[in-house]
């Protein structure tokens, strides 16, 4: 007798062949294919280990990532596996239709930021202590750069542990299981090891094996690069849920004796993490919707900051602080102006600016140049130092945290802007998903 939940074979030939091939791999090539309604466990055809193994093989072969959870409270039959595959295919087709609709209406890809976190290094040092470590007069970082303290990684902390902590907190904030991740996109300007940071995070977080892992560069611009890649993956229907993580531990690279204090002393350690979901899959009206991004490279400033490894293990740092400061302010102001024009959102109505913060003095200067209150820039560099790719992330998290305390309807847009050596630049915006 046919079960109406199981579609006729003619419509599902390719799925059926795939399921049967996986079944034969598990049960043996000579095994006969049981009827659709036979419970493979009850009939003793597969044991529980082989049943899960078979399902994982179907997941891998079909590209359907959550078949196992779709079969909870169902019988262990081939018919149920085929029905779950069919359901999953229909859902994907709905998501792709939504993606197509977005393309036709030429609106930006609909990705919603649903959870965030920022984790500074847990050793908070007064800036005077860092002055002394670099052999500078005590008070120099505070008076010249406005840095009051620096967050350094404690023993046992590194890019992986900080990013993993941030990711776990972001997952919790988004009420999202690690198994839901389709991609992890990581960025760091200090992690140069292999396996890469995204691969290490993949293992540490125990996401699904078929969740992708990707590292993007850009140094302090890394977060924006990662967000735009995530947005593209979601917009194209390739992914539904993505973790974007940043992590930077400068205190072990930019050390006294290796670099000058005027450069190395500015940097702290930290991480940030964000959960992005497809708007089509996000039933909640919470979170922030990603707008468009713009990017570029002002090569004329490329010489203002250059860092390269030496043969003897040292670092060559070319750092023209004056030129870089001027370029940074000018370029970020330009980026924010472009964001304002493209989004149609006046800067006066923006709730917060999540920007790169080379040092607190420059943030104050940028706010002045833009004609907005310095209070709209969270004091990340003032408290923790320049966190590299995580500065923008820590600032964005802080703005989102404050916004979450506002009643719905009162939340305001957020502007993003950052820079990286090159001089790379980028910007974008987020609007409340009310």
């Amino acid at each position, binding site marked *: 007798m046919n079960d109406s939940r199981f579609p006729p074979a003619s419509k599902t030939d390719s799925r059926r062949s795939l399921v049967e091939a996986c079944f034969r791999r598990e049960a043996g090539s000579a095994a006969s294919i049981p009827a659709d309604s036979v419970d493979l466990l009850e009939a003793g055809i597969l044991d529980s280990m082989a049943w899960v193994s078979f399902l994982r*093989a179907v997941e891998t072969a079909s590209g359907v990532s959550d078949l196992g959870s779709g079969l909870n409270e169902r019988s262990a039959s081939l018919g149920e596996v085929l029905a779950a595959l069919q359901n999953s295919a229909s859902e994907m087709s709905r998501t792709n239709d939504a993606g197509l609709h977005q393309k036709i209406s030429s609106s930006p890809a609909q990705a919603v930021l649903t959870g965030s976190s920022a984790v500074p290094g847990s050793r908070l040092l007064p800036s005077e202590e860092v002055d002394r470590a670099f052999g500078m007069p005590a008070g120099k970082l505070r008076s010249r750069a406005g840095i009051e303290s620096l967050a350094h990684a404690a023993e046992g902390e590194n890019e992986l542990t900080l990013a993993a902590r941030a990711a776990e907190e972001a997952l*919790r904030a988004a009420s999202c299981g690690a198994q839901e991740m389709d991609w992890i996109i990581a960025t760091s300007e200090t992690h140069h090891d292999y396996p890469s940071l995204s691969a290490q995070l993949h293992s540490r977080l125990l996401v699904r*094996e078929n969740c992708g892992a990707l590292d993007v560069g850009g140094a302090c611009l890394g977060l924006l690069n990662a967000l735009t890649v995530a947005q593209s993956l979601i917009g194209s229907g390739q992914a539904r849920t993505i973790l974007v993580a940043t992590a930077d531990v400068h205190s072990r690279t930019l050390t006294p004796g290796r670099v000058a204090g005027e450069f190395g002393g500015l940097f702290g350690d930290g991480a940030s993490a964000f959960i992005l979901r497809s708007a089509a899959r996000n039933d909640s009206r919470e979170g922030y919707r990603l707008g468009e991004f713009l990017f570029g490279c002002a090569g004329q400033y490329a010489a203002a900051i250059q860092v390269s490894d030496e043969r003897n293990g040292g670092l060559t740092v070319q750092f023209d602080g004056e030129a870089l400061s001027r370029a940074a302010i000018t370029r970020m102001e330009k980026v924010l102006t472009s964001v304002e024009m493209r989004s149609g959102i006046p800067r006066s109505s923006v709730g917060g600016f999540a920007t790169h913060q080379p040092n607190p003095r420059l943030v104050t200067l940028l706010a002045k140049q833009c004609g907005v209150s310095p209070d709209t820039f969270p004091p990340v560099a003032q408290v923790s130092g320049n966190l590299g790719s995580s500065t923008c992330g820590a600032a964005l998290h802080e703005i989102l945290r404050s916004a979450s305390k506002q009643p719905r309807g009162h939340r305001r847009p957020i502007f993003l802007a950052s820079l990286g050596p090159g001089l790379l630049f980028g910007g974008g915006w987020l609007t409340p998903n009310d």
Partner: protein
Amino acid sequence: MTKLLITEITRMGPAFCVIGLQRENDRIHSIRPVPSSANGWMHFPHQRGDILEFSLTPFPGAKPHIEDRVSTRAFQKSSALTEAEIVPYLRRAELARSLSELFGCKIHENKKGSGLYAMPSEAQRSICGCETQNLRLEICANELRASLVLPSGEVLRDLPAVDHDWRNFVDAALAPDRGANRLPRLERFLNSNFHYKIMSCPHHFIRLGLTRPYNGLCWLMLDTLFPLPQKEWLEEF
């Protein structure tokens, strides 16, 4: 008589498998008391943490289940330890940091689907403890599965979780009298609160075991997960 601190009670199918720790001078090692007629107990009226006195034959079981000892007479309880007191003893017994140290042999990935296995002729033991960097439980097509990260950073996925207490907890969470959406509620718990409760617990520890040879292979499974689940947690979801 041999005194054993019962550290594991596992359930796979209808039978229970019991493992305990025996102290011999400074050495603490695992012993799996088995009834004379089978590999598991159909009824085992004791708890984890109980210290039981067994009458065991001195002959070890066949490789890799060298911890097997046949229990020749009825056993009796002499005292008991709390959960937090058990783990320090487990940390002094068989312990590994990496995949190759677990059973003293190469661990193979199932090329057909999921799971990991050891060759019976290569494995030097069938039980081992370890710390984890991370651990998750999930219900996959009605089966309780664990994935974990060893201290070496190596990942073990889709291990059957056979810990009796954890399986009971899942059964209780899915009991029909717990109202609607039991499975999604349990999944949410396993994805959020569970993780925090387990990983932040000072006596978080796991023991991994090898199944009896099945089609010539011994599969890895999660025998024990500390902390053990608490009944009150059921009120949280």
